[in-house]
C-alpha cells in the first residue's frame, strides 16, 4: 500500500434532489480500510440514495467522492467498479431470462471466479445452467454477493442483504464480511436489524432526513442510542416505547383459544412435494405466527392459503365451508387476503396511493363505474389509520419501502377482510414503521380479524404473535405460545433439531 491517505472512501457534501424532494443534504461519510461501516437511518433517510450515488447508478447534484485520497468521478456503474467499489443491491442485479453462467459472462467473470465464495456459502453445488428466474431470491442475493466479491473490490456495499435471508444464510454473509475485513478491505453495511449491526460493525454513520446526524464508534453503544439518533430524540423514545408496549399488550393476552370460533382450518394439506401434510386451526382474533428457514414449504403453504394454488390433497376450510379456490379472487371473496413478500407484486407502482388503496374495491361489479362516497371515505380513513406519508403519493413507486408496505396492508383495510395473511411484512422496513405495523396487526386482531404472520425475523414472534408454528421440510414441527418462545428455541426447531413438543 503506497497510498498516504488513511481513508478508503471519503464522500464530502453529497447532495441530491428529486424535483422538490431533497434526498440528501450535504452528507459526509468516511470509510477507513479494514472496517465494517454501517449506514443507518429510518426509511426515507437517504441510505439507498447514498448507495446509488457511491455505485454511480445515479449522480449527485454536488459533492465529491474520493477513493484512497484520489477524487473519483462516478458517472456509470462500471466507473464505480473500476474505482474498487462493488455493490449488492436490494434487488439482485441479475438478468432473469439469462442463465447464471451467462450472467457471469456479461459481468466479465467466469464460474471459477465466484466458486470459492459460493463454496463458503454452501452453494458449491449450484447449477450454472439454471435461469435466474428459476432460482430463489435468497440464493440470488448470495450469488450477487459472490459476483461482487469476485471483482475483488476495496469497498463492498451491501444494501439490506440479510432482509430475505434465513438465519443460516445470513451467517455465511457475516463470515464473508469478517473475512473481507481481515484482508484490510472494507464493507459498507446497510441493515434495519440493529442486532446484526452491533455485532458486526465497527463504525456507523447515521442519516436522518437526508443529513448525516451522527457517527458512532460501535464498541460501546446500545440499540436505544442508535434508534434515538436515527429518529431524533422524541420520536426515538416513542418508537422504543411503542415496541415495548406492543410486547406488553401481546404478552398478557393469553388467548383462550377454545372459546373462540375457528375461522380457518387446514386438514392434512399437501402441495406437490413442498407441503407435506399441514394441519392447523386459526381462531378469530388471533395472530398466528409462522416461521421457518428458507424453502421449508412456507411459500407453498401461503399459495394454498391465499388461493393461488389448490392443494394436491387435504382441505382448506374457511368459515366452516371448504374453499376450493381457483385463483386468489375466490379466497378474497371469502375474506382471506394476502400481503405478499414482494411489495411490487401487490402494488401498481405507477399509480397513486389512493388508487392502489381502492384497487380491491373494483372487485365488486356494482362498483365498476363509480366509487361511492363511503368508499372514498374508507380509503381516506385507511390513509389516516396507517399514517401513510402521501407527499409523494402520485406514484406509489416513489414512496419509501415502509410506506409502500403500509399501502399493501391498507388496501385490505379499505375493502374489508376476515383473515389477513402476511408474508414477511416488515422485511427491509425501519424500526418506527415496524412498530406501527405491529401495533396495527394487534388492533386488527383485537377488532376480531385473524392474522397469519410468516416472519423470518424470529424476534418478531414473541413481540407480535399469540401462538407460533414452526415449519420444517413441509411440515409443522413445533407449536407453542408465542409469549414463551425464545429465539434459540425457535431456531433449533426451525432446523428440525427438536423432537419434543408438537
Amino acid at each position: 500500500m503506497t497510498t498516504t491517505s488513511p481513508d478508503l472512501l471519503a464522500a464530502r457534501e453529497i447532495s441530491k434532489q428529486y424535483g422538490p424532494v431533497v434526498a440528501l443534504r450535504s452528507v459526509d461519510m468516511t470509510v477507513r480500510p479494514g472496517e465494517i461501516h454501517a449506514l443507518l437511518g429510518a426509511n426515507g433517510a437517504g441510505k439507498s440514495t447514498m448507495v446509488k450515488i457511491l455505485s454511480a447508478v445515479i449522480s449527485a447534484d454536488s459533492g465529491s467522492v474520493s477513493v484512497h485520497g484520489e477524487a473519483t468521478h462516478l458517472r456509470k456503474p462500471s466507473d464505480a467498479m473500476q474505482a474498487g467499489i462493488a455493490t449488492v443491491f436490494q434487488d439482485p442485479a441479475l438478468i432473469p431470462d439469462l442463465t447464471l453462467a451467462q450472467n457471469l459472462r456479461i459481468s466479465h467473470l467466469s464460474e471459477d471466479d465466484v466458486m470459492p465464495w459460493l463454496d463458503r456459502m454452501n452453494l458449491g453445488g449450484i447449477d450454472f445452467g439454471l435461469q435466474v428466474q428459476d432460482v430463489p431470491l435468497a440464493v440470488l442475493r448470495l450469488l450477487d454477493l459472490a459476483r461482487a466479491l469476485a471483482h475483488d473490490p476495496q469497498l463492498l456495499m451491501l444494501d439490506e442483504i440479510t432482509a430475505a435471508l434465513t438465519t443460516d444464510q445470513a451467517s455465511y454473509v457475516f463470515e464473508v464480511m469478517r473475512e473481507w475485513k481481515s484482508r484490510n478491505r472494507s464493507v459498507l453495511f446497510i441493515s434495519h436489524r440493529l442486532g446484526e449491526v452491533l455485532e458486526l460493525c465497527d463504525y456507523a454513520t447515521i442519516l436522518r432526513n437526508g443529513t448525516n446526524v451522527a457517527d458512532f464508534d460501535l464498541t460501546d453503544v446500545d440499540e436505544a442510542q442508535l434508534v434515538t439518533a436515527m429518529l431524533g430524540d422524541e420520536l426515538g423514545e416513542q418508537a422504543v416505547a411503542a415496541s415495548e408496549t406492543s410486547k406488553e399488550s401481546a404478552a398478557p393476552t393469553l388467548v383462550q383459544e377454545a372459546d373462540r370460533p375457528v375461522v380457518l382450518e387446514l386438514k392434512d394439506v399437501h402441495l406437490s412435494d413442498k407441503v407435506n401434510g399441514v394441519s392447523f386451526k386459526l381462531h378469530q382474533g388471533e395472530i398466528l405466527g409462522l416461521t421457518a428457514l428458507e424453502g421449508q414449504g412456507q411459500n407453498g403453504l401461503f399459495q394454498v392459503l391465499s388461493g393461488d394454488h389448490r392443494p394436491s390433497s387435504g382441505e382448506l376450510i374457511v368459515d366452516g365451508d371448504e374453499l376450493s379456490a381457483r385463483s386468489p379472487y375466490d379466497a378474497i371473496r371469502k375474506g382471506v387476503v394476502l400481503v405478499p413478500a414482494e411489495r411490487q407484486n401487490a402494488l401498481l407502482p405507477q399509480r397513486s396511493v389512493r388508487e392502489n388503496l381502492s384497487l380491491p374495491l373494483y372487485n365488486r361489479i356494482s362498483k365498476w363505474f363509480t366509487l361511492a362516497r363511503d368508499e372514498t371515505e374508507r380509503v381516506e380513513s385507511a390513509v389516516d389509520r396507517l399514517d401513510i406519508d402521501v407527499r409523494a403519493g402520485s406514484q406509489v413507486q416513489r414512496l419509501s419501502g415502509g410506506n409502500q408496505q403500509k399501502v399493501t396492508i391498507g388496501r385490505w383495510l379499505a375493502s374489508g377482510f376476515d383473515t389477513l395473511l402476511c408474508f414477511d411484512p416488515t422485511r427491509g422496513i425501519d424500526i418506527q414503521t415496524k412498530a406501527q405495523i405491529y401495533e396495527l396487526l394487534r388492533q386488527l386482531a383485537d377488532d376480531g380479524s385473524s392474522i397469519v404472520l410468516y416472519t423470518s425475523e424470529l424476534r418478531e414472534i414473541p413481540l407480535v404473535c399469540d401462538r407460533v408454528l414452526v415449519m420444517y421440510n413441509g411440515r409443522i414441527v413445533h407449536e407453542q405460545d408465542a409469549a414463551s418462545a425464545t429465539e434459540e428455541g425457535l431456531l433449533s426447531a426451525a432446523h428440525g433439531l427438536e423432537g419434543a413438543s408438537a
Partner: protein
Amino acid sequence: MTTSTADTIAAGSTPTWQRWMRRHGWTVGVWLLLVVLVAWYSTLIPSFGSFQFATIITNGTPWVFLAAAQAVIVIAGGLDLGVGGMLVLTNVATARFMDGQSFEVTIMIAIAAILAAVVINAFVGWIVTASKVPDIVITLGSLYFYQGLALAILPNPGGGTSEGFRWLFTGSDVGTGSNPWPATVMIAIPILVVAWWLGKTRSGLSLYAVGSDRTAAYLSGIRAGRTKIVAFGVGGAFAAMAGLSTTAIAGSGNANTVGGNMTLNSVAAIVLGGVALTGGIGSVIAVVPAGLILFFLSPILTAMGVDPNRAQIIQGVLIVVVMMIAGLIEWRRQRRV
C-alpha cells in the same frame, strides 16, 4: 439444512435433455411444424420436386431476413416498424444502381447497401435512445421515410441486376429454378453467425440482458443505450439482406411494395418463432422456420383451392390459434413448476 432449496439449484437436479427441451422446445416445434407443412403441401399439389422446394426457400428468403431483423431488435427490448421500409428502400436502390452492371460491381453495391443500412438504422436506434420517445413512434417515422425515399429513387418499377447476383440468392440466373442450395446457404451463414454472437459473446448477451431487465443490465455495467443502437444496426443489416434477396428474386425494384405489411409480417413471424415482444427471450434460429411458414401459408391455401380473397381470414385465424396453443403450453409448464 436448506434441503429443498439446495436440491432445486444443484447441478444435475433436472435431466439435461429435459432442460434442453424446455429451453429449445419451441425452436424444435416450429421446425417440425415447417416439415409437417411441407410434407402436407407435397400431397396437395400434383408434383412436388426440387423445383417446388427451391421456390419455397428462395421466395421465403426476404421473409426470413426481415423476421431476423425484427427478432434481434425485439430481443434487445425494442421494436422496429421501419424494417419493411428498409427492405423496399434497399430493393429499389440496388435495382437502380445494379442495372446493367457486372457481377463484381453488383456485389460491391450490395455490400455498400448493407453498410449504409447498418449506419442508417443504427442512427434511428440512436434517436430512439437519446430522445426516449417510444420505438414504435420513431420507427413509424423511419418506415415512412424509407418508403418515401424509395419512391424518390425509383418512381416507377424497374431497374435490374446481374445474372450472377440473381444466382447468389436464387440458384438461377433468371430468379427461379430447381436449386435450393444458394438460398439455403445465404440464409444459414448470417443466421448462424448472429445466433452464435447473441448466445455466446458478451456483446450479444447484452442484447438479451437489456431486453430482459434494463435496470439489472445497467447495474451489471452494460450500456443499455449503446446495446440498443447495436441491435438496430444489426437489424438494419438483416433488413437490407431482405431487400437484396428481393432484388435478386424479382430482378428489379418496386417502390410500390407496401413496406408496412412486410413489417407486420415480420412481427407475426417472430412471435411464431417464440420471441417475446417484451424482450429478452427468443432465438434467431427459431425465426427462420417461422418466417418460411408465414410465407408458405398462402401457397398452401392456394393449393387447397381456397379463394385468395378469403385466404387472409384463414391466415389470421391460424396465427391466433398457433399462439393460443403456445400460450397453453407455457401455462401448463409454469403450473407444474
